[in-house]
């Protein structure tokens, strides 16, 4: 077999083939767990690692099993990653994919929440340092988990949806797909859209968050992040908002991808109270 890339990875930093990369089904959900790894650092014996739960976009896509340097960014910095293929993800059969029908904002959220709780109950991660992150639909799942469940201590939404009601009115092209995921069309099912919109339940939110947004995003427009930021800030919860000029739905420019990753790490270091090994440009937290 011939391949176009002979890129090799450093097994002292990145996970190698012999590592236990857990890809399994627990609590009726498929998840991939990657533990922290870096040859230059060892966690303290009496300290469990922070956990970052990743929620993919779609919502009916799936997280990829190929080498993902974004995940390795976190594991090489001492943070365990749980990459969740929540109910509705493709690649596990029709019945599994259909678990999300009419349940978007519920099944995805609880599969992420239950994954974190499972690892806490097994003593594998620090229950006081649990974070959730995701882009697009994964950003929506993140905001739902932070608002409707009391498990995570921090979260990052990358161009996520905070208000389904305004989103469905701004985004005409995917209304049919949206109605299938939510379980009703708009405005007939307005009550469900409201019930599953984090910003409409801001009274339930008490968790710090960081928001990333491309200012040219036509899929999830900037008003989603902007209104979420304003609402969280008004409540006095630590929050940061990083808008990116020239970016659309998913960042493309290397400097912005790097900035977003570093800013998210900086945010967790502030919320969880750990020192960064390398200097990172600070992020302004509003409270």
């Amino acid at each position, binding site marked *: *077999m*011939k*391949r*176009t*890339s002979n*890129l090799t*990875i450093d097994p002292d930093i*990145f*996970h*190698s*083939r012999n590592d236990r*990369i857990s*890809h399994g*089904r627990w609590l009726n959900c*498929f998840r991939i767990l990657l533990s922290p790894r870096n040859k230059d650092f060892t966690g303290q014996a009496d300290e469990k690692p922070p956990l970052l739960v990743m929620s993919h976009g779609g919502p009916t896509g*799936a997280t*990829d*099993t*190929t*080498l993902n340097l974004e995940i390795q960014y976190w594991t090489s910095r001492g943070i365990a990653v749980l990459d969740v*293929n929540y109910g509705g*993800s*493709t*690649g*596990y059969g029709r019945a599994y994919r259909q678990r999300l029908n009419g349940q978007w904002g519920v099944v995805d959220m609880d599969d992420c929440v239950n994954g974190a709780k499972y690892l806490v109950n097994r003593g594998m991660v620090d229950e006081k340092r649990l974070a959730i992150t995701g882009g697009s639909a994964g950003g929506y799942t993140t905001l739902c988990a932070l608002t409707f469940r009391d498990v995570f201590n921090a979260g990052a939404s990358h161009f996520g949806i905070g208000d389904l009601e305004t989103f469905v009115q701004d985004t005409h092209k995917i209304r049919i797909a949206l109605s299938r995921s939510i379980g009703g069309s708009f405005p007939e099912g307005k009550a469900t859209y409201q019930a599953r919109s984090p910003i409409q339940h801001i009274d339930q939110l008490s968790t710090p968050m960081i928001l990333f947004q491309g200012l040219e995003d036509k899929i999830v427009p900037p008003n989603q992040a902007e209104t979420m930021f304003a609402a969280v800030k008004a409540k006095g919860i630590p929050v940061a908002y990083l808008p990116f000029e020239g970016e659309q739905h998913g960042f493309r420019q290397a400097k912005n991808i790097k900035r977003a990753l570093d800013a998210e790490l900086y945010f967790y270091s502030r919320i969880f109270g750990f020192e960064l090994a390398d200097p990172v440009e600070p992020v302004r937290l509003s409270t």
Partner: protein
Amino acid sequence: MGFGSSSYGFSSKDMLVSVYTQEGTAHLASIDIQHQILREIETPYTSIWGLRVKGEDVYFGGGSPVEAPALMSSKPIFG
């Protein structure tokens, strides 16, 4: 998946090469159409996409947790 997605192709009139995904892991297989026999084509990859077949040559994108995504060409032994 975008435009031009492909998960199978014919290597001959009696032989199909296909990608399927089970429990989140991709598999490459040949299918003897006449005898309805599926044979796994072993690869080290957990993700396979964009399959193209031309005679005995098979082309696809592939990657695994320890190998970055790349384009592959292979000449599997059918039968």
